[in-house]
């Protein structure tokens, strides 16, 4: 017998490295879930992770959420800002879970100091372990749209196409959270993402 309530709650694990915008993305997602009438919880660890370290943020929503953290093997979506970080957290996905990952690679200086190596086979590993992963060259895309910070909104746009949350709430929350002069651009980026998803 398997755990029952693991099917009712939607679990999204957002990952990346310090300073990439992981926390903002999960803030937006949990806000959208709350405004759509769900109980929502979100958990991350800030602190040391700000200095370029590993950052993860767990978002869960359903009628009633207890634990703010996702169990291994139960994430529905792994939303990743960095390719090797996707590999690091793949084991959190449930068998039917989907990967959305930016192709951006950030090589930690620790690698140059001889502490481990960057997983060059990342894309192959992800393809082997999951169905229909979405690889997106989000950084060049964002730069073309006019601002590297738009990576965040593009990735959320893709996720939004897989999550059953009203698109109006998405747009409302994004519009509220970005500076007024970036509003239009962010909504364009969101739609671009949504088209991919």
């Amino acid at each position, binding site marked *: *017998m*398997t*755990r*029952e*309530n693991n099917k009712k709650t939607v679990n999204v694990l957002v990952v990346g*490295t*310090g300073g990439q915008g992981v926390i903002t993305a999960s803030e937006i997602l*949990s*806000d959208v879930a*709350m405004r759509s009438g769900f*109980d*929502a*919880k*979100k*958990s*991350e*660890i*800030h*602190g*040391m*992770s*700000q*200095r*370029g*370290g*590993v950052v993860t943020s767990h978002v869960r929503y359903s009628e009633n*959420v*207890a*634990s*703010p*953290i996702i*169990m*291994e*093997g*139960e994430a529905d979506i792994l939303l990743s800002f960095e390719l*090797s970080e996707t*590999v*690091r*957290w*793949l*084991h*959190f996905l449930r068998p039917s879970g989907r990967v959305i990952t930016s192709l951006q690679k950030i*090589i*930690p*200086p*620790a690698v*140059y*100091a*001889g*502490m*481990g190596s*960057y*997983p*060059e*086979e*990342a894309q192959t*590993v*992800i393809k082997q*372990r999951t169905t229909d992963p979405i690889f997106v060259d989000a950084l060049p895309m964002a730069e073309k749209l006019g601002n*590297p910070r738009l990576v965040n909104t593009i990735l959320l746009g893709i996720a939004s196409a897989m999550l059953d949350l009203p698109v109006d709430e998405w747009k409302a929350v994004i519009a509220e959270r970005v500076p007024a002069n970036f509003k239009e651009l962010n909504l364009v980026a969101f739609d671009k993402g949504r088209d991919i998803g």
Partner: protein
Amino acid sequence: MKKQILSGNEAVALGAFQAGVKVASAYPGTPSTEILQNFATYKDVYAEWAPNEKVALEVAIGSAMTGVRTLFTTKHVGLNVAADPLMTLAYTGIPGGLLIVCADDPGMHSSQNEQDNRFYAKFAKIPMLEPSDSQEALEMVEEGLLLSEKYDCPTMLRMTTRVCHSKSIVQIDAGNQAAVPVAEGFKRDLKKFVMIPAFAKLRHPLVLEREEKLEHVTETTAVNRIEWNDKKIGIITCGIAYQYVKEIMPDASILKLGMTFPLPKKKIKEFADKVERLFVVEELEPYIEDEIRIMGLAVEGKIFFPKLDELSPDIVATGFAKAGVLPYDLPPVQEKAPGGSMPRPPLLCAGCPHRGLLYSLNKMKAIVHGDIGCSTLSVLPPLQSIDTTLCMGASISMAHGTAKAMAIAGLEDKRPVFAAIGDSTFFHSGITSLMDVIYNKGNVNVLIMDNRITAMTGGQQNPGTGRTLQMEETYAVDILEIVRALGCKRVREIDPFDLEGTIAALKEEVAYDGPSVLVTKRPCVQLFRRDPQAVRTVDSDGCLGCKRCLKLGCPSISQGDIIPDDADKKERRYSNIDATTCYGCALCEQVCTSNAIVYVPQ
């Protein structure tokens, strides 16, 4: 009623404001810092960063002595620093509500240990509340203040990182609040507030009486509640562990403890008597479990749920599976994907003012007592420039001890002894250590890294920055003046971005027989905007791929394409500088011996 998604820390700040708290004092420390940062933004409140936790608690006590509702927040290790006032405060009591918010860090996400501070409440015999989510955190602030006022003692609100930093939905209903008592001002009461032995002897029995009264409170409070369900399994739990238990064992009966000192022994007994198997699920120490054992009841806990690290739903499920009571199969163990274990430790930022000094220290062949702060991050390669980190302020005193021991024992060790400490940490507890060095004729070389902020915890003001928590302008303490006043006349500022000058200064101080202080004074990059004009670039005609610049551990420098080479030497790659993140500190330019790193103003 308004709904908002708040972190535990935001909820405590809001709860304190709604409950009429007027004064708050703290020293920053993850995961507690955001409480005061949020509280300070409310209207008509006074909030301050004190130089350390002992000072902060004493400020709070003085405030609560006037009857004003007061807040003191700290991370777990900060309560060690404030333990002295705490233990006697438990004797004196205070007329105004005083809430001590203590944020523990199971799992040591950003701490030097994972001590379980619930024992402090038991030690001091003060009531303790433990929230499991943001809603409870908000409500327990008022609850705690009421207890404090009614029983004439501080209340401890014990949080943990997961409760502080997780966000959950909070129903905000300011109308539900009880009236805030009117502060009656400071009233002289010598036998209560002057703890000479004769008077303290009178107070101690009152502490015991209070404990008895609180034992009644804890039996009837709504925050200690039984959720009856299947009685085969009964689980006693508190804090974040409650959420994991609800997630994993939805059909079990639960005794949810929101007040964990004193423990409700009758309620525990009543619960234990009605269930077939009794478990305790709690993070860190068997604090509740031991108490239940002493009561003579059969209970299972730490044999299934570890004392180490924070719990998680996975760990709780595994524990119940081991106990043979998990009502479903454990999910198959999820194997980590190959290539997923590359280390990605936190780093000093590009342009960090500490880098030049730490790089130079690495070249000194010295014993370096480090301290707590961003500079601690230099322990890993490539910088690897410190030998110890213990607790705040310890670098200077430990260096003094090492140097004295080496001298008196005649140890054959030619290595000079350094202490490296940040500005905020120097104000916290480094000053007294330096006083010891000078007073006792020590011989250590002290390095004060003045980056004009308390950086590690996210950038807070401190006594040297010229601004208060509420952003008022104030006197900025002059570190050089303090050092001189302590009796150390050999003190000067150096520029950590001048590598040659920095190394020369370190050598000079080693050669000098006596204590000395060097102060690096360059701001943390959190304090100013990056100037894209200052960016350095690698000239591929000059770069030999020697990796010297990579030894700086600057996140802006990486390796790029392979350098074409006709002789079959080892493969070498060009260094690359990321123009979007480089701060232009010019350290890499200085370490490059082929002049391949250049500055091209656009």
